Structure formats: C-alpha cells, structure tokens
C-alpha cells in the first residue's frame, strides 16, 4: 500500500508524524519504505537520525533519480545506519525500515514525461517490495503532489491502493487551509480528477490528521484558570464545528496527534524508551501514533462516509 503525506502549510508536523507512523509499522513487522519527496527541504534524514549515511548518499537521492541522473535512488537502512541509540537495536520480529532521502541541493523542477515515467516505475518497484510505502510530499499544492497525482492516475497503477493523509494543525487558519488544499478549486481532488482519477474513489482515499492538538482534558492544562479552561473547551468545540462545515469533520479524520513537545521541538522518532524510561514523551502521543499507524491499513476507517 502507498501512503501519501500532504499538508497545506509547513510546520504541521507532517514529516515527523509520518516518519513515526512508518516506524510504528516497521516495529509491528511490516517492511516499510519512507520516501522524502519534500524537495527543497528534506528533513527525513534528521528525523531518522541517519545524518552520516545521508552525507554518503549526497546527490544520489530521489531528486537525482527522478531527473534521470542515477539509475536508482539511494537507500538507507535505518536500523543499521542510524546513530540513534534505541533505533540501532530494533526488537526481534520487526520489519525492514528503509529511507529514500531527497537531495539537499535538489529543488522543485519542471514536470516532464520522463520524470513521471520514473516516478511510476519507482512506486511500482517499491509496491512489489514493501508492505507499506510512505511518501512525504512538500507542503501545499506542490510539484511533488502533482507528480504523484499524475503517477497514480496511470493505468499501470490502477490496482495499487494509494491513500492520502492530509496533516493540519488545530487552528482556524489551518483547518480552512487544509480543506482548501483538498477540496479547493486547485485542490488535490480537482487536480486528481483533471488527471483522470475517479472523484469518488479519490475522495474516499483521503483522510485528515489533526496534529499538535491540545486536549483540554489533558493534565497539561490542569493548572489553568476556570475561565481559560472554559475558553479552551469552547474554542475546541468551535473548531470542530468549523472543520465539519469545511467537510473535514469527524468522519474524514483518521486520527489526532496530541500537542507533544518532543515532536514540536526535536522532530524525532518517539521510541518506547522516550515514553517509558526517560519519560520525555507522553504515553498519549505514543498511543495516538500507534493507533494512527494501525488505521492506515484498516479498511474500516476508509469506507465511504
């Protein structure tokens, strides 16, 4: 299965969250490949803590592959290349976790038939090889988004299940922007239909992920005044209404990730050690990520509304 991670704007935690989802699935025994299609600002190497391996693959990443300069994009085996102390010793029974980095120097580029060809070839190759392929796309209606929309519309990919996660923060602006990224005039759905996607099918393959959501009931906020607390509840309620009005209400949401300092400040994988031993990350975050990871392939959450 292919998972495309998109977001309306930067700073939604799209990369770090989708990387964590890939990590959870690999822990659960799936062979997972993570593609950094965030051309221009590739961050995945930092999230997976594979900086040195990244240096070695300089200029042989996805960008160089798509423009035809190398025959295949570099692969980094996260378990063996990471400098992260915990990731280096994955539990027995876990699957492969492979990162395909972007290129540091590679910006966006003009779309062309050959690039598209190579993109389809790559996605198909990985589809045959992995259980799950997570593709992190640059923010907005970017070239990366256009390319994978075009690629998945090709007849040879018709049998491959592709699902979209649209990440957004839990604010008025972000809710509106996420809705417009998907349903707007120049949105993903319209762009997909232009390229030959079936509108119903495409809509049904898109779910939203609310990121950095403050939970009014969380102990984090136990010290706030009653007025503040009431205001938070009210705002949260208003946002839910707003989301619903934009067509991205409850039924379109795959899950939420709570406001988590470790994700916000460090952009890293959250390991069980972070939760249990050093306790720098919240149990709730781990749970949310785990749940979200499970729902990626759980058809129940992808049935037509």
């Amino acid at each position: 299965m292919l998972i495309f991670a998109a977001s309306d704007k930067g700073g939604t935690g799209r990369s770090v969250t989708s990387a964590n989802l890939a990590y959870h699935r690999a822990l659960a025994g799936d062979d997972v490949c993570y593609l950094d299609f965030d051309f221009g600002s590739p961050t995945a190497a930092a999230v997976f803590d594979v900086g040195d391996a990244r240096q070695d693959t300089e200029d042989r990443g996805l960008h160089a592959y798509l423009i035809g300069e190398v025959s295949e994009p570099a692969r980094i085996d996260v378990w063996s290349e990471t400098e992260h102390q915990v990731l280096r010793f994955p539990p027995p029974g876990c699957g492969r976790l492979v990162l395909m980095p972007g290129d540091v120097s590679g910006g966006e580029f003009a779309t062309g038939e050959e690039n598209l060809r190579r993109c389809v070839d790559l996605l198909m190759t990985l589809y045959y090889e992995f259980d799950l392929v997570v593709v992190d796309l640059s923010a907005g209606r970017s070239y990366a988004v256009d390319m994978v929309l075009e690629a998945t519309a090709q007849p040879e990919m018709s049998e491959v299940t592709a699902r979209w996660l649209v990440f957004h923060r839990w604010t008025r602006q972000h809710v509106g922007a996420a809705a417009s990224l998907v349903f707007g005039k120049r949105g993903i759905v319209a762009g997909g239909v232009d390229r030959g996607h079936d509108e119903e099918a495409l809509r049904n393959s898109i779910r939203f992920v609310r990121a950095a959501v403050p939970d009014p009931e969380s102990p984090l906020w136990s010290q706030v005044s009653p007025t503040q607390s009431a205001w938070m509840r009210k705002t949260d309620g208003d946002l839910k209404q707003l989301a619903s009005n934009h067509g991205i209400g409850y039924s379109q949401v795959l899950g939420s990730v709570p406001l988590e300092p470790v994700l916000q400040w460090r952009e890293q994988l959250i390991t069980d050690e972070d939760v249990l031993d050093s306790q720098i990350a919240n149990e709730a975050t781990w749970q949310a990520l785990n749940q979200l990871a499970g729902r990626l392939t759980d058809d129940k959450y992808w049935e037509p509304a």
Partner: protein
Amino acid sequence: MTAAPGQPARSVLACGEVRTCLLPSFQALDGRAAAQLLRLRADVHVRVSERPTTYVLSPEILTGVDCRLPTSNGSKVRAVGTVAARAALTEGRLLQSTAYFSLPAAGPDLRRPWGQYLVRPGLVEPFGKLPQQATAEGVLRGAGRGELDLGMIAEGLLSQLRRHALLDRGKPFKSSPTKLRWVARRTPEGERASLVNFTVAEGGLRTMELRLPEHIPAASAAGICEDLALHDWLLTSVQHMLDNSRLGAADGPSVVKALHPIVVHLLHLWMPRAHVDPALGHLWDVLEEKPGFSRQWENLSRRIRDRLALQAVAMPQQARSAQAEGRNPNHIQTGDKT
C-alpha cells in the same frame, strides 16, 4: 563469435549486471505469452526452451554509450560503443535483465563513425589503453555519476517489461529484486573457465569474478551469471520469507498463508545449469562445495514441507475443511490482493 574481418576486436574483459525479480503477475506466463513479452524486436526470434524448465530469452538490444568507464582508482577513461541488453523469463515466474559489454585492451584516440561501432555489438572501446584492474573493480563497485551505468541499462529494460500490457501487475507475494555485477577476465584459449569469487553483499547486491577463455562468447558468461543470480535470488527470497517474524512463533492458518506462495510459485524453480553453456556448467561446482547452494535449498524446502506437515497434523480439522473447500470450485483461492 568472430569479429568482422580486419577488425582487431579481441576483448580482454567482459562486464555485466543482472537484475532478478519476480514477474509482477498473479499468473505465471506460459511459453507463448512469455515469448510475446520478450519480443523486444518484431523481426527477431525469441528463444524458447521448454526442457528441463521453461526458459525464454529475448533478442538483444543495444544502447549506445560515450562516457567514462567506472574505475576504482579514479582514472578517467573515455569509452565509446554499444552495451547489449537482454531479458529472460524462467518458468514464467522469474524475470531477469542483463546489460553487458566487452572491452578490448586498447582503442583509437578519437571517436569513429557510429556505424563502425554498430557492426560490433556489445563492444565498448576505450580511448587509449584500458586500465584493466581498475575498470574491473570499478564495474563491481558500481558506476559513479556520469560513468557507464550497466545498472541503469538493465533496470531500464526491466521496467519496460514490467510495464507490459500482458501482465496483470499482481503481487503474488512481497519480494525484493537483486542485482549481480560480474566481470570476466579473458584468458588464453584452451584454458578452463573458472569462478574466482562470488560475494553476497548488502542491499541485494552480489558480485562475481570469472576467468573466461577467449573462445567462449560474452553472452555465455552472461548466461551462467543469470543462472547463478536466479538461484541466489531463490535462496535469498525464501530465506527472507522464512525469517519473517510473523512466521516465527505463529501457527495455524497464518503459517499456511505465509508458506503458500513459496510452494505454489517457487519450490519447483530450482534447476541449476539448466540453460547454461556446457563449457561453463562446472562453475557451479565451487558453489555447491561451499557454501552449498543446493544443500541450502534442500534444507529450506524441507523446512517448509515439515512446517506444513506439522500444521496438517496439528489441525486435522482445519486441514479437512480446507480440503473440502478445495473441492468446491467457488472456494478456490488464487493469490490475495493487497
């Protein structure tokens, strides 16, 4: 294969890369469909052999190159010529593509008219003297940016075939492709071909070094390398499927489900030397001695059969009901889609 008269085209080195993968199709192709798939040229025969296994070999196609050779010591040698590429399908299941070329010891210092290169397909001429050792090592290491890229040519052919409309693009089970890079040093005629080295590296990469007497065509070397790559792929893939965590502690129908594709699609594919030039068949002997390719395969097959037998003993009930289902044509399971 003889060179055109008056053309000193004696090669000192042959190099190639083989890519091996599962054919993306639920259905294994029969000989006729396979021949259609591998008909890279409408006017040339596809070679079809049905004994002892169905093996279909495409005609060769050429790719023109004019670039630096990959070298291990950084020496920059420009070379011009054509790289031959071909594809093979074994038992309608395993798809392979090979890109290969030969190199003479030296070549002219300027580029000749293109037609002169085309009449010697699969020959790439260096400008000046060929640094043999550095080039052999460079090929095994893999091409750097802008260097002659056998992988790109082999992969290009493979992806072209995987896009073929004849294929249903199904995924009978998850598997990784492998690549095998090889170099063959030419030795005087009369000497016996030998395998110098076979290395299993990370990331599905295998490398191989041979010594090849002059009278044996490079295409034959490509053939033995394809044969070894194919069997190495089988070992690698089945081992990986057995190592899969979910199988380790599991029992019940999940074991049957996991082992099912191996039994249906792979177990019958083991057939070393089946379509190899007889002059090169003995290269297998070294690998049978150590590590013992066939020995490992027998062991794996036995593990699978034992596992399934155990399953049948442990769950006679289920086995019986499965049998009953099998009799009902409405319940026959073909592969499962993901």
